[in-house]
């Protein structure tokens, strides 16, 4: 019998969409659709084993080989730079990494810019390309209140619709990079389960093209 393909899915709204894509591609798993609190689901017929993990952990599971493939946002891949193959852009969960600030923000070029973000690596890299000296404030959530309380001048964060920003009197100022969900694979798993993974990849890409 073929070994099951271990697939790490990001818990949450994106994960639901991603699973729906896998299902449409011919990798359904009925037990995952039942309401329960289990974390691991198998369908031997389709040859897959899914598990839900925290979105920012997907890349870790894949990099260390606990999952053969997984779906992670480009933001996570840019921030942690895991050593994995990036096989396809699924076109799901589209948003962008932005610099945002208060609407009336005036950028004082003669000062060190204080940047609050969940993505210090991306933010640092972006400002390094601009040769701008910054002070990074690493936060884990509710980034939007940092400029309001004067903790930072700007924030670097993911913007989907911009509604949260707007409600907090902020607006996106610059786009750093567009973000979407990517299909990633462990480099060794890719070799030992090559046929399974390329077939899955082919089917997923065919669906992405259809939109």
């Amino acid at each position, binding site marked *: 019998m073929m070994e099951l393909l271990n697939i790490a899915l990001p818990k949450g709204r994106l994960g639901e969409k991603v699973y729906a894509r896998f299902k449409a591609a011919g990798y359904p798993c009925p037990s995952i659709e039942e309401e329960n609190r289990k974390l691991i689901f198998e369908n031997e017929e389709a040859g897959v084993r899914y598990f839900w993990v925290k979105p920012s952990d997907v890349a870790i599971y894949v990099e260390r*080989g606990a999952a053969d493939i997984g779906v992670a946002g480009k933001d996570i891949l840019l921030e942690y730079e895991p050593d*994995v*193959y*990036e*096989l396809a852009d699924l076109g799901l969960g589209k948003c962008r990494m932005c610099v945002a600030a208060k609407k009336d923000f005036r950028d004082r070029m003669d000062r060190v810019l204080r940047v609050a973000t969940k993505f210090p690596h991306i933010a640092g890299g972006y400002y390094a390309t601009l040769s701008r000296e910054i002070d990074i404030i690493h936060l884990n959530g509710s980034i939007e209140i940092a400029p309001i309380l004067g903790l930072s001048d700007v924030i670097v964060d993911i913007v989907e619709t911009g509604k949260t920003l707007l409600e907090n009197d902020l607006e996106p100022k610059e786009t750093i990079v567009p973000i979407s969900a990517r299909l990633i694979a462990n*480099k*060794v*798993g*890719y070799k*030992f389960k090559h046929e399974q993974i390329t077939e899955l990849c082919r089917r997923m890409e065919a669906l992405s093209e259809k939109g």
Partner: protein
Amino acid sequence: MNDSPIRRPDERAGLLLRELYHRHGYQGYRMSKFEPYDLYARNKSFLVSENILTFTDTDGRLMALKPDVTLSIIKNAQPSGQALEKVYYHENVYRTSPAAAGYREIMQTGLECIGALDLAAMGEVLALAAESLALLSGEYLLDLGHVGLVSALLAEQAGLEEAVRAGLLAELGRKNAPAIRSLCAQAGLEHSLAEKLCRLSQLYGPPAQVLPQLEELAECREAQAALEELEGLCRILERLDLLERVRLDFSIVNDMRYYNGVIFRGYLPGLASGVLAGGRYDNLLRRMGKAGGAIGFAVYLDQLERLDQGSDYDVDVLLLYSLQDDPAAVAERTRALMAEGKSVRAERTAPPRLRYRELVRFSEGGPA
């Protein structure tokens, strides 16, 4: 790998590998644990991780615990004329890895072949890499690529900016075809180059299947030469019955300031990262002021620990005795049980965490 429970898989593999290299006429090479820091500082980007563990020697010189073996060997290599220098080593190196915080000690066994290389010598090293993997697991895979082919493709585009080139190589390493396309488009490169690189990134498979596809990609002379070299090496491996587990893969890219020809990686099922890495690195030799070619590889033995299933028990027999028993008789009884091939632990009370297969009470019989 279960001939003896006390011999760890990495130790056993280290012995087997050295024996293999010795039988192929390679000479053992023992080196100092330290080198002047200078050696590594000058060649930082050759190293897997740029962090180097340093200390000040008694004479005030800055020294480093060696993060790499190859540099030390090359520094001391003195190839003469047509004769090659063939050495193997078994050494600890000290590195950081992105996954683990702080420095780690990693045991490496490997070999280097330095001098006027020809196809036979390269084939020998590649065959030894395959045989090394076979000693570790029957289900290994050996990925083979060629830096020359990739650089020949990139050279087709004149005046390629360094940043774009580095970006393309990084995406090639991720097999990320969409990113290669968009990078090429952004940099205004020819569409044909983008398509070739994308196809190259997606190629993976046995040589018989991949080599014909490479023919279409290798148009210029340099690429042709690289392809011919690959074909030649595959013929050697085929003759030695070692081709079956070889896969061609052009996503293995290393720093081209050091590597120039074939490049290879070895993988075992169940291990999340490679256990063997090697390639041809004439450029490094040149940077260190030496002529000729060099090819070699290293096997990372620290990973093998993960392969070991281990025993479910600490000992086979727990022998319980009491203070009333004759100590000499207890000793005798222990030897008798050991003679049956079992491991025996003698105690008065059972240690709380000890897992044993069988409990024997001394008071309950046995030879007097």
